[in-house]
């Protein structure tokens, strides 16, 4: 389908974009890479009065390490994340995850900030933000505020951003030396939205999880941190411990039913991901319930 008519403004700076948002209220929509917004507009799921194109604002780009924090500009494209040596060194979970985000032609335009602000519950990067303890830097005419990733995602396509705010950058703590990432998702076609996925980061000491953050996606209305991960921390992992954690995890999930998969299939796949993650991070084949013998 074709988009309905809208007006277009090319924002010259962040302050210019914020002025336009304030002046036009809910009728305005920010355009970054457009890889989520333009499908929605072409399908006429949304029909904004004004598109504010922030794609040319240089101050929203760039990846920089500052002390023990990695700052990633909102306009950083997926392909930039994929090729960045800073990301590979300090946030390798993102490097792994990006390979699963859509397809090369979409990764050449889609941006980190756009994906996070869009907040599709099946997309990979919001879950990575939870696993990596990211902080969102949000700008408005009142100045900047900082929002923890866990408080940022509120529901399907819903975030803590107001209509007068703009996501400026993301701050990630740089990786501790022994922190290890795990990423996997189930999708019908490589690059499609996941049916169930897991972005995780762990610290393993002497075969035991000293820390474990499990951020699941496509199994709820927003990315979810598994509380059951606590059952795997600071204990010797046996198959009994895994079964107990898996059962607790399945009980805390409330996955959606849709044309891709039933709720019970999603719950099952999520527990398979949990087992594979523990198995991979601990180097223990015996824990992988989802692997054929």
């Amino acid at each position, binding site marked *: *389908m*074709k*988009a*309905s*008519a*809208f*007006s*277009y403004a*090319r924002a010259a700076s962040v302050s210019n974009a914020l002025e336009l948002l304030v002046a036009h209220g809910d009728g305005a929509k920010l*355009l970054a890479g*457009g*890889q989520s917004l*333009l*499908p929605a*507009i*072409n*399908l006429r799921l949304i029909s904004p009065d004004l*598109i504010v*194109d922030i*794609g040319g604002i240089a101050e929203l780009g760039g990846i920089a390490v500052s002390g023990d924090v990695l700052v990633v500009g909102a306009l950083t494209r997926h*392909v930039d994340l994929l090729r960045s040596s800073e990301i590979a060194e300090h946030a390798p979970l993102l490097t792994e995850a990006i390979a699963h985000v*859509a*397809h*090369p*032609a*979409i990764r*050449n*335009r889609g941006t980190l900030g756009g994906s996070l602000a869009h907040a599709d519950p099946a997309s990979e990067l919001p879950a990575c933000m939870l696993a990596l303890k990211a902080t969102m830097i949000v700008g408005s005419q009142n100045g900047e505020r900082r929002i923890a990733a866990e408080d940022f995602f509120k529901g399907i396509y819903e975030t803590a951003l107001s209509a007068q705010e703009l996501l400026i950058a993301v701050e990630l703590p740089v990786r501790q030396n022994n922190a290890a990432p795990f990423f996997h998702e189930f999708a019908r*076609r*490589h*690059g499609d939205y996941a049916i169930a996925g897991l972005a995780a980061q762990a610290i393993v000491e002497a075969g035991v999880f000293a820390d474990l953050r499990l951020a699941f996606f496509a199994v709820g209305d927003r990315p979810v941190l598994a509380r059951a991960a606590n059952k795997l921390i600071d204990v010797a992992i046996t198959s009994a411990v895994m079964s107990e954690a898996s059962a607790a995890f399945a009980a805390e999930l409330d996955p959606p039913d849709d044309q891709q998969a039933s709720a019970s299939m999603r719950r099952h796949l999520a527990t398979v991901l949990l087992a594979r993650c523990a198995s991979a991070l601990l180097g223990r084949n015996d824990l992988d319930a989802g692997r054929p013998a």
Partner: protein
Amino acid sequence: MTAHVPISLDVNGERVDANVLPRVHLADFLREHLQLTGTHLGCEHGVCGACTVRLNGEIVRACLTLAVQAHGASVETIEGLSDSGEIADLQAAFRDRNALQCGFCTPGMLMAAQDLLKLHCAPDRERIREHLSGNYCRCTGYQAIIDAVETTARGRTGRKP
């Protein structure tokens, strides 16, 4: 009412100046305004890959790029790649390996395949599948398409087909 926006861009090496409505995406601009109908439109929401073009040297979905966003950019379409001879061997391989049936997906497939071959000179079949994963062929000629890309890669690096 929304106003036309003036844009200037480079299309296949030629300067183009136009006034476009903001809602017009790049694929419609190429097809309707410039009569470059080699860029096909399938789904118009980024799933099928038929509208793949190059923007500043990188492949993008022309249906998910507004024409106004291409202001100041360099665009290359299948007509440009074909006329310059850049993909003559790839096109010949598609013909030889029977990698096109109805031909609807072919321009997008060629754009995506050439993008891969520029990034990797010797991709294996898995890598080819992954890079073309965003391009649908509804005739389901995928194996032959992968054969053609693999043959071209071998030919370019002087290996036996």
